[in-house]
């Protein structure tokens, strides 16, 4: 059996590795036109900032692939004649497959802004974008970034390390407002503005981009009519599945490649996983298109098992995600909506002076915990996952919160402050329990092995 995987990102590579782990005979080919080897896309910013070189972002040494008999093909897929079970590559090569995995990831959105084709307009998705950014950085004194999400703030952080002035346009009243509740958003606003000296413009949208006689960006205009001179424009307004090269084929596509719970497409022996996928029947409580590192990895893992002969449905567990906004680490577990529904209550605690906050969302009647946002405080994934899965109440969570505390040793824990504020707000009389390794380990076991 010859399995061909298009895309060497986290989804495609996890699929290849999982398949190899369970199935020693098949031959596996991974095709990518972005890089020779798998690297961690999430580390792009650290290459630009000089924390790491490209080679450090490769999770496996180069000999790993040959040793595990995973053939790497540095080429670009032009088209897929599904009826022949083969792929046409840019080099003219044709590769045939028995099973095909499409893991082509996503591409940055661009919303047809006038002037967006100018030199100096960039997105931030892959190595090629980084090269462009590097090229334009040398003669940029001010950059404008449009799009208040994870990539936008990363790009802002990157540019500041090169002493480039940044104007950051965010359409919403606070940073990442479709995900973050107002309190957290305002904390990040403040961090962006006061701690990192970025000209953060809220409720501001990009209208058009102007370029000079050589075609290079020289200014932008916002919807409110303000003209901002700049030499670089970062468009960071989300991503969409990278599937355009398949639009006119028989594979079923809406926003992404339509797959069932086994990540099978409408064409036999053709599968898809990762960012390029749209679930026909999204898992309960989840979106049809979920484009984060973790879902890519989980889908890849799941599909690898299916391809090795054990047909496995993709059933993601409790939602989790993480990010870092300049100096503030963010973790989220379960469901913390930007605005609570009428059946939900919430409890927000923020440190009076430090960039640390926790947001608990729970059932108004039941008190059952639905989700937790954490800023500047590390929490134990397994413990949070089990609490949410087992429908623990917010009171249970609070009094056992030291079990979830994952901050480095000697760091202050604020559990008493948090609980007394909760008591004050709700009139309860909760008292913190001591950390119990027994409970922690049993939660880890349950979260990992299900028993």
């Amino acid at each position, binding site marked *: 059996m010859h399995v061909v995987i298009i895309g060497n990102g986290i989804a495609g590579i996890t699929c290849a590795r999982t398949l190899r782990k369970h199935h020693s005979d098949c031959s596996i080919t991974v095709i990518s036109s972005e890089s020779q080897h798998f690297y*961690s896309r*999430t*580390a792009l910013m*650290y290459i630009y*900032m*000089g*924390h*790491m*070189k490209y080679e*450090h972002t*490769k*999770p496996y*040494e180069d000999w790993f692939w040959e040793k595990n008999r995973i053939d790497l093909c540095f080429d670009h897929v032009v088209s897929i004649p599904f009826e022949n079970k083969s792929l046409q590559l840019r080099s003219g090569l044709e590769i045939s497959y028995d099973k095909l995995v499409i893991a082509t990831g996503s591409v940055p959105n661009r919303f047809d802004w006038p002037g967006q084709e100018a030199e100096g307009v960039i997105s931030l998705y892959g190595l090629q974008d980084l090269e462009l950014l590097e090229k334009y950085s*040398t*003669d940029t*004194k001010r950059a404008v970034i449009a799009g208040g999400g994870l990539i936008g703030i990363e790009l802002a952080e990157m540019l500041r*390390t*090169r*002493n480039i002035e940044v104007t950051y346009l965010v359409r919403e009243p606070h940073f990442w407002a479709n995900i973050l509740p107002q309190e957290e958003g305002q904390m990040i606003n403040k961090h962006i503005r006061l701690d*990192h000296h970025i000209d953060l413009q809220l409720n501001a949208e990009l209208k058009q981009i102007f370029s000079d006689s050589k075609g290079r960006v020289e200014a932008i205009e916002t919807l409110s009519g303000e003209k901002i001179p700049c*030499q670089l424009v970062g468009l960071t307004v989300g991503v969409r599945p990278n599937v355009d090269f398949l639009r006119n084929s028989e594979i079923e596509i809406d926003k992404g490649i339509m797959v069932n719970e086994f990540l099978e497409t409408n064409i036999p022996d053709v599968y898809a996983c990762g960012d390029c996928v749209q679930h026909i029947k999204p898992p309960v409580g989840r979106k049809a298109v979920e484009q984060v*590192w*973790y879902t890519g*990895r*989980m889908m890849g*893992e*799941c599909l690898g*098992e299916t391809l090795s002969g054990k047909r*496995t*449905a*993709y*059933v*993601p*567990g409790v939602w*989790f995600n*993480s990010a*870092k906004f*300049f*100096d503030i*680490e963010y*973790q989220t577990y379960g469901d913390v909506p930007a605005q609570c529904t009428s059946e939900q209550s919430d409890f927000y605690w923020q440190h009076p002076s430090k960039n640390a906050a926790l947001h608990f969302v729970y059932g108004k009647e039941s008190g059952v915990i639905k989700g937790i946002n954490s800023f500047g405080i*590390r929490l134990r*994934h*397994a413990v949070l*996952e089990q609490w949410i899965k087992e429908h623990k109440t917010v009171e249970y969570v609070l009094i056992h919160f030291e079990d979830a505390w*994952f901050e*480095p*040793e*000697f*760091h*202050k824990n604020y559990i008493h402050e948090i609980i007394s504020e909760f008591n004050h707000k709700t009139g309860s009389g909760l008292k913190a329990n001591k950390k119990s*390794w027994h409970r*922690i*380990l049993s939660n*880890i*076991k349950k*979260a*990992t*092995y*299900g028993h």
Partner: protein
Amino acid sequence: MATEINYSISQPHPDNLGVWRKIGLALVAVGLAILAFSFGSGWTDISGWYLGICLGSILTGTTMYAYGLYMWQTPGIKNDSVWMNDISNRSTWAWMIGIILTTFYILLYWFPSSIGLGTEEAGNRGFVALFDPLSLFLKGKVASQWFAYGVLYSLAIISLGFKFLLKYRHSRYHIWRTTVLMICQLFLAFLIPEILEGMNQEQAYFAKDLKFFWPLNYYFFEDWHLNAMAEGGSMGMFFLVWGIALFLIVTPILTYFLGKRWYCSWVCGCGGLAETAGDPFRHLSDKRLSAWKLERWLIHGVLVYIFVVTAVVLYGYFTNQSQIFGIDIYTWFRKPYGFLIGAAFSGVIGVGFYPLLGSRVWCRFGCPLAAYMGIFQRFKSRFRITTNGGQCISCGNCSTYCEQGIDVRWYAQRGQNIVRSSCVGCGVCSSVCPRGVLKLENGPEQDRINEKPILIGRDDVRLL
């Protein structure tokens, strides 16, 4: 902030150094100039002011530089441009520093008279003479090359320790650990032994550093050292018993409860230098699997070597013989170990090559005490670096900044705790992790090592 467009190829918007860093650099330059000048000078009987100004300006200068560098930035990870700067990326300055350090070590170990060590008749000159006033003050004797080295070594740990404290001021783990390291160096390794030495001038020399023990102190069981302790009165007996107890009892117990970090990243002098002066080079350690293989052969080889040498030396001591099976013990056992391991490996390569091979080459590839504690850490200890469920994004910061060359990411991305004999528990992997995945902690031995890890996040896999 640069406001003009700059068409140069290098960083077009360089940092403005600012007044703190400029004054700091100037002060450091003054101190280094005095040191540099002393080598060529014929100084004898020189005033203590020279050394005072030299040490004072270096200490103040580095601290001011660090203050100017870090205090204008928010607390947090400070790794911007690490792989772009000449000095931290094995370029010209790195090689220059490497060559200067290596030369210094070679002169120090094998040609001390060339740096001014005097004889009975003629006193110290030049570099060593610079340290005479302090030595006379502390112990009433003129300086040896080792005294001079001890002063500079302590200065490096203290001054660059302040820099490290400012760099990691957001982390209480690093604040505690670095403070303890600095105190241990200043008092246990330097001041107390020198003062004790001065108070017991009539006695033969033996090591009086409370935290420096066999097998790192490879001469502990050599006949001259055993005799010196035996004849050293109650203090000598104390150091003899304490030295043996540290190896046999204290180390296994502490390593069981805390991991070997209690020593390597909290107390040890070699570790102290690596964590402070060596911090700008920590990312240069080799992360390849092949380096790990070499490491295991080398460090355990050295451990076996010192056991053999010490067994032979003790055999000679108790049987009062200078030969074993007709082979001379000094020429074939003691001397080669002292030369190869004690001087060349731990000093010349261990520190001299900081800017090229990273800061923990000795600790990782050579230190027999680290090997000994590593065996406990791997097989019988409560210490581990816990991996936080499925949160790893494989970015590579942890592996890159591991001074011991551990591929931390390999474990983190498969949801496995890190239990490795070589981990010195510096805690930097955890600090540089952008997603809160790693935590150094002591906990139950049960489930410390998960051999078949599964990443948290999916509900469909619950095999095993």
